[in-house]
């Protein structure tokens, strides 16, 4: 099936070439980072995690969201999702690969990464995250690929795939829960020290992932001769609406506890996020943009007339994605360090090198996704083609 990725029109190759250039640029800057050290990034003694770990956290959510297709289709026999569950699984695969790459580029000593397996430490959540993420990657590659191969041959998938698919449902929840536990179990970081972290992660994941999938489906419909079907897209948009509402609710719940209790350790982080602290307000415009986009998108998704128009749906889904990327891919990680345990405020500015490497990893992920989707569409079109011939 792989050869199907090698046949494509001009637009396809221009897109691939573009991604290759961005990835190569990222790689070039990564070599510079490798040479100089992580000091080449904006990370500091006080803000010791930045863009990389934030992207990792956000993308774990995108990966976990595949379950929003798999669960309705396999547990509730919701037929409309039958055509696109594979798209969700491939999105999960490329998102997990991006997660792994973001962790990798964030390591000070990447050549020692295998120490995590050589000296397994069950008390470390990062160790468990490595296990659940690699497991999730394997499960999704297998199920996605096997189901697509069977579709191609027009035979039912082999029996052993079903248990694997059922396993992938709790597993998807586990990857984001474990990722939340990396943060939620640290005694000195009050911003993260909240039991609602894992539920909050899951809610925002189930909004951002399906929103991205809707955008991809609309792109494929327009440029890829593949129609996911009105029913599937509308069902997805309802999932996005509910998950987004839950996600907004969870953030408001956090704000209540922080500001009504007025415990400085808890309130000061949120103050920094939304109002600025002692003259430092780097993230304030970002967070209000995120909040504005989230509420606008929610309003758009709730009204059926707007949700049903594809153009507006695309706008709403883009707003959801951008809003949650800011919330999780920018605000959540950095603010945990501001103010520091010694009550110092150090702002974080990602450097050009850091941004180039980040874009490079995104480009690699999008490239893997493009190849997978290209194969998927070619297989689908082949099936339709033979059916068409047989009927005549």
């Amino acid at each position: 099936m792989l050869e199907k990725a090698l046949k494509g029109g001009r637009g396809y190759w221009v897109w691939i070439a573009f991604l290759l250039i961005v990835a190569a640029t990222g790689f070039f800057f990564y070599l510079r980072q490798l040479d100089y050290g992580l000091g080449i990034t904006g990370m500091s003694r006080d803000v010791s995690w930045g863009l990389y770990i934030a992207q990792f956290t956000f993308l774990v959510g995108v990966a976990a969201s595949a379950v929003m297709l798999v669960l309705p289709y396999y547990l509730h026999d919701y037929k409309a999702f039958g055509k696109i569950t594979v798209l969700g699984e491939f999105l999960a695969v490329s998102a997990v690969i991006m997660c792994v790459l973001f962790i990798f580029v964030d390591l000070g000593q990447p050549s020692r990464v295998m120490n995590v397996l050589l000296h397994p430490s069950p008390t470390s959540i990062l160790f468990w995250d490595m296990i659940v993420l690699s497991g999730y990657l394997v499960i999704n590659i297998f199920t996605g690929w096997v189901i697509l191969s069977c579709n191609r041959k027009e035979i039912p998938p082999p029996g052993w795939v079903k248990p694997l698919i059922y396993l992938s449902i709790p597993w998807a929840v586990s990857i984001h829960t474990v990722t939340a536990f990396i943060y939620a179990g640290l005694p000195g970081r009050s911003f993260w020290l909240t039991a609602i972290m894992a539920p909050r992660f899951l809610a925002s994941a189930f909004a951002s992932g399906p929103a991205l999938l809707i955008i991809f489906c609309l792109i494929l419909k327009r440029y890829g001769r593949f129609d996911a079907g009105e029913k599937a897209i509308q069902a997805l948009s309802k999932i996005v609406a509910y998950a987004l509402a839950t996600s907004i609710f969870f953030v408001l719940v956090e704000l209540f506890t922080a500001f009504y209790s007025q415990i400085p350790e808890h309130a000061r982080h949120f103050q920094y996020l939304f109002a600025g602290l002692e003259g430092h307000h780097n993230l304030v415009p970002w967070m209000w943009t995120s909040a504005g986009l989230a509420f606008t998108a929610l309003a758009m998704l709730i009204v059926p007339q707007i949700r049903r128009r594809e153009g507006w749906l695309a706008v709403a889904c883009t707003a959801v994605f951008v809003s949650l990327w800011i919330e999780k891919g920018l605000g959540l990680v950095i603010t945990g360090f501001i103010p520091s345990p010694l009550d110092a405020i150090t702002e974080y500015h990602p450097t050009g090198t850091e941004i180039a490497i980040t874009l490079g990893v995104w480009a690699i992920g999008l490239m893997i996704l493009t190849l997978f989707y290209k194969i998927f569409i070619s297989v689908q079109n082949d099936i339709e083609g033979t059916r068409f011939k047989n009927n005549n």
Partner: protein
Amino acid sequence: MTTNRREFLKIAGASALTLVAPAILCPAWAKENVITPSRALTAQRWGMAVDPSKCRADCTDCITACHAVHNVPNFGNPKDEIKWIWTEPFASVFPAEDHTYQGQSLQKLRMPVLCNHCTNPPCVRVCPTKATFQRPDGIVMMDYHRCIGCRLCMAACPYGARSMNYREPRPFIAKINPDFPTRTKGVVEKCNFCEERLVKGLLPACVEACKEKALVFGDMENTRSAIRRLIESRFNLRRRANLGTNPQIYYIL
């Protein structure tokens, strides 16, 4: 030579066994024999008392001594800064105890801060490679050769005691002490309670350097030790003790 399937499987199986065998057998002869020299200072639980009221204003003797002995680089910027022991104002060390009517003497006081060598250290709990670990005598140690530089320990430490080598440290060390290893870029480091000196029978460098005797080092479990009697007789605070980390640096106030 042709190998049939059966032979191939035999060879493969035997090869696999040689790989696994050492792992199964090694505990029998690999039991670590810890040799403690007779002159070494030992304790059940090392701790330190700090009496900041004894500190001279602007004195940096403890910092200078520590950083010279341990090859701590000076990058000259706060972003990449590495520090094992340094001073902070009262309001930063004890944010919860600070208030508007606090006396000037306390507000202006700068206190030495360092790794608290917690009895229940979160950094050790979160480390994915056991590069940071706790000795039976309570010292929280770093293995610079195992650390992958993920910085989870920095996020976990509630005291900001850990520093990352954001760049190659060696060019920024004023004078390299050949008796202590330098670090590479990409690893985390922190105070080690001078374990390399304790084993030689010497007190930590900061304690030795302090002419005012503001730092007292000793065994917390020994009821007759100087530190134990000091802690029992004077009012003291520990940083963020409410977090359950059980820090072993005691501030006499």
